[in-house]
């Protein structure tokens, strides 16, 4: 199993607010799973907890990546174990060039895995090629990380990072938000190009639109901190047409 989440309970560290109330979810290698669900149901929280963000406390349950328990790992260890989160709101880092950042990340991960680091020349060659297919120009590569990028450019930059880091488990949190139709195609093509037997995706989205491009194998509905329903691609269509009311009523 690529990703195996069992009975995950999570509360905020600073206050007594419980957000995840027993999430069960398994994602097999080679598959694309989608998570949909109303605002505030805990989708981003799940992705943050998996990636190791501070501020949350796991009170029960477990999460493992390829059999390794990840919840005790530092975020950077999880990354080199192959976990990647494309942020709902990518962060701006002034003064740090996109290329410098990417190369530091790629080589740190390679080093952590005991692989040879890429030379500047090797890195440049790969990054140029991947950037091109995402229509990220040389200027964007040179600019500080995400600074002055439009919403869509930030999302494309997330996919570029994913393409460079070649993770095993990719979590995409609302990567479609803020994208125009063309950018949505670009981003989806970027994701589809990475689809592979050894790689899995967990795609968080509100809209069927993205799933027209990135065809999911499994669709989950999250509500109030739990996965309340799991089905095939038709589940996303049902949400698109009828909203969540029926599904929520059915499982209540």
């Amino acid at each position: 199993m690529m990703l195996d989440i069992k009975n995950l309970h999570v509360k905020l560290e600073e206050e007594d607010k419980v957000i995840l109330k027993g999430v069960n979810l398994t994602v097999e290698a080679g598959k694309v799973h989608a998570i949909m669900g109303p605002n505030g149901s805990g989708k981003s929280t799940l992705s943050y907890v998996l990636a190791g963000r501070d501020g949350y406390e796991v009170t029960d349950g477990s999460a493992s990546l390829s059999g390794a328990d990840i919840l005790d790992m530092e975020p950077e260890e999880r990354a080199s174990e192959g976990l990647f989160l494309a942020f709902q709101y990518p962060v701006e880092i002034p003064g740090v060039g996109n290329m410098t950042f990417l190369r530091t990340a790629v080589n740190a991960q390679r080093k952590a895995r005991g692989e040879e680091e890429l030379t500047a020349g090797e890195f440049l060659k790969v990054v140029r090629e991947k950037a091109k297919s995402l229509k990220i120009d040389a200027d964007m590569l040179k600019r500080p990380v995400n600074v002055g990028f439009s919403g869509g450019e930030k999302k494309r930059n997330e996919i570029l990072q994913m393409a460079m880091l070649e993770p095993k488990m990719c979590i995409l949190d609302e990567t479609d938000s803020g994208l125009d139709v063309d950018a949505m195609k670009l981003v989806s093509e970027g994701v589809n190009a990475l689809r592979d037997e050894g790689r899995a995706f967990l795609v968080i989205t509100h809209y069927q639109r993205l799933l027209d491009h990135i065809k999911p194998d499994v669709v989950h509905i999250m509500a109030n901190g739990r996965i309340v329903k799991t089905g095939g691609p038709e589940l996303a269509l049902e949400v698109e047409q009828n909203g969540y009311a029926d599904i929520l009523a059915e499982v209540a």
Partner: protein
Amino acid sequence: MVSVKAKKLAPTDGMLSRHAAAPSASGWADAARASARARLSTVGAPQRRDEYWSFTNPTGFVSNEPAVSTPLAADEAASFADADALVLTFVDGVFDPAQSGDLAGEGLEIQTLADALSTDIHWAKDVFGVLEEAGQNPVPRELTMLNTAVATEGFVLRATQVVARPVRFNYVQTSATSDAVMRNLVKVDAGASLTILESGTIAARCNTVFEIDIADDGALHHVRTQGRDHDRQVFTAMFARLGARSTYKSFTLAMNGVLTRNEQVVEFTGDDAAAHVAGTCMGEGDFHNDDTVFVTHDAVNCESRQVFKKVLKSGATGVFQGKILVKKGAQKTDGYQISQGLLLDDEVNFLAKPELEIYADDVICSHGSTSGGLDETGLFYLLSRGVPRAAAQNMLVIAFMDEAVQEIADEAIADDVRGRIAGWLDRHSAG
């Protein structure tokens, strides 16, 4: 504010005794020096209990003890060494013609201070000690009076047109007890412009003053890196007077340093002008870095901007005292001021005193001061990409400082400054 109790004057002989009296020059220069000496004797030496020195202990500047700072090995090239510039090298605060370029430049008139002050009729008469004296209100800046009284080293520069080639003051310290006083006078003619760069540690202890007079439509760009020797003591003051539609931009990078006080005294005298003063510093342990800025708006529609960012670690202290004074009639003033401390642990101090004093009604003035640790969201973002924690923290330090570095107009110069910062961080993470 105004103390009614008569202040007991602190003796000035300690700081005066460290420096030889300036040799007799022309009548006007001698008069300016004598006036400064007399003014100094009426205000006394700076002392800790002065409000103007409440965050920074001036003892090191005032003492007659020698200041000791063993120069660091020159293991990196001077800042801006790549820029095509007229290089003026000073060794321990003394001009060294052998290591300097020819004293000439297109659109540039340049003389040593000694030569200019010995000339009977010279424009310097209207600047030397004049801007300094005008800047003594509302607080006396004693160390600048001392500078006028005793300085013999430095340059007198005049831009008569757009000067393409920057002038770079290249400081080299060789003596562990060097004690330098430097004075530079700068005049930018109407429509002319000049870039001044400074790099390196001047001396174990230094007192450097610039008086800068910018005529209408003139521009002066000033960027300096102040070295990274730990024990050096640095006092600098820049007095700038701005004509209509003129521009003054000054940026300072300071790394390490047991005692640094950088003052900026800016006055708008003509309408529609702009002044940007910015700086960033970082230090750990026995580090004290003070920026004291006073901007006076006495003209219409001028813009002033102050951006200061201080990175502080294990025992370091950062100080910012910044004031914007908008005089009656200085309508349409746009004044902005931000000072921020990045506190890398709990053992540090960031002391900020932002002040606005406004006597005009149609102005936009804002000021802010914040201090806090590294940005948690940014840190998580970088870690989640597999960037190791130390490298991620360094990237966020760079991100913090860069908001000041961005104030530098010239990209190549800004990149040089960025290179210094990255180098410092590399050394400090390794060590």
